[in-house]
């Protein structure tokens, strides 16, 4: 790629009472990520641009943004994969309040993790011996499939149910609840199933699969939510262990 190739980048700006897209000409480089582009704009074009990132290697889940209308982890999204007609449009994550420019307020997202009881509830003290859980135990296998979430909120931004029903707990919180529902050491199952059976609970999922499509770690929250629906129905009907 030649050194002086450029691309048009429209970046959402808000704060100070104004909002709208601002267009920058940024250099187009080989192996460039979307986060590289945002960083270039902040360092070379407008230092007042607000955005959030930390690890730059797809571990921390803090740099997710809407790129050409779709939620992406920007540090691992190569520009070559998403560039449309030589243009990029970068906006803050959907379904979350915006603090300023590209930085969203993640508070509602994490509050829903708490509301879904998506936190480990120990059933033993720290002095108890380690619980033996075999790697091929079916519940461990189910938890394994869902456990690599990095809390990036890409699924939350992709979810049309969240968009139309702000009460809905969302794919990430419910996916985490599913890993805990399969944790033999967890003692909070009843409270968790009650928490995810309320008005904004797992039963609102339409199984559209946007979360599964966009999850950067290729998790399947749709399947996790389906598992939770089965677990709540089994528990409500008294069929074995939820």
């Amino acid at each position, binding site marked *: 790629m030649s050194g002086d190739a450029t691309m048009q980048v429209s970046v959402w700006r808000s704060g100070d009472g104004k909002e709208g897209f601002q267009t920058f000409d940024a250099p187009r480089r080989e192996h460039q990520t979307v986060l590289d582009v945002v960083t270039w704009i902040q360092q070379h074009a407008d230092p007042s641009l607000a955005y959030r990132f930390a690890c730059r290697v797809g571990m921390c889940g803090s740099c997710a943004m809407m790129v050409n209308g779709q939620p992406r982890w920007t540090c691992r999204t190569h520009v070559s994969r998403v560039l449309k007609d030589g243009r990029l449009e970068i906006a803050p994550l959907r379904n979350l309040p915006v603090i300023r420019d590209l930085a969203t307020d993640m508070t509602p997202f994490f509050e829903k993790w708490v509301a879904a009881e998506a936190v480990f509830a120990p059933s033993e003290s720290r002095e108890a011996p380690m619980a033996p859980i075999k790697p091929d135990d079916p519940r461990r296998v189910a938890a394994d499939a869902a456990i690599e979430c990095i809390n990036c909120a890409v699924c939350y931004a992709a979810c049309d149910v969240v968009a139309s029903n702000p009460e809905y707990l969302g794919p990430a919180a419910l996916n985490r609840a599913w890993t805990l529902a399969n944790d033999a050491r967890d003692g909070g199952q009843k409270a968790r199933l009650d928490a995810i*059976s309320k*008005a904004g*609970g797992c*039963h609102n999922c339409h199984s559209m699969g946007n979360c599964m499509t966009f999850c950067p770690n290729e998790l399947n929250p749709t399947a996790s939510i389906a598992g939770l629906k089965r677990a*709540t*129905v089994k528990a409500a009907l008294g069929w074995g262990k939820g």
Partner: protein
Amino acid sequence: MLTLRLYLLQRVTAILMAPLVLGHIAVMIYAVQDGLTAAEILGRTQGSLGWMLFYGVFVVAVAIHAAIGLRVIVAETLGLRGAGLNVFAWGAGLLLLALGLRAVWAVTA
């Protein structure tokens, strides 16, 4: 907005409706093989407790199932919430129930 109770009600009514719909279609196909007049159909259904129960259960299941489905659609697309949403859902369910039971009564009583 869809709680476990509403979710279960909608699934249970779907399970009820599935065999009733298949039964209805099967009887329709069988009954019209040699041609049937309205009078002949009414002759078989009127006074039949079996057909009254068959279509009565179907109408009750439809009213519950459809009202819950409409409740979700109206909430998600029009943003209706709270008491207004409940009034809408109950109204839709009761309207479907009244219309359906009226038809069942007319054909089987």
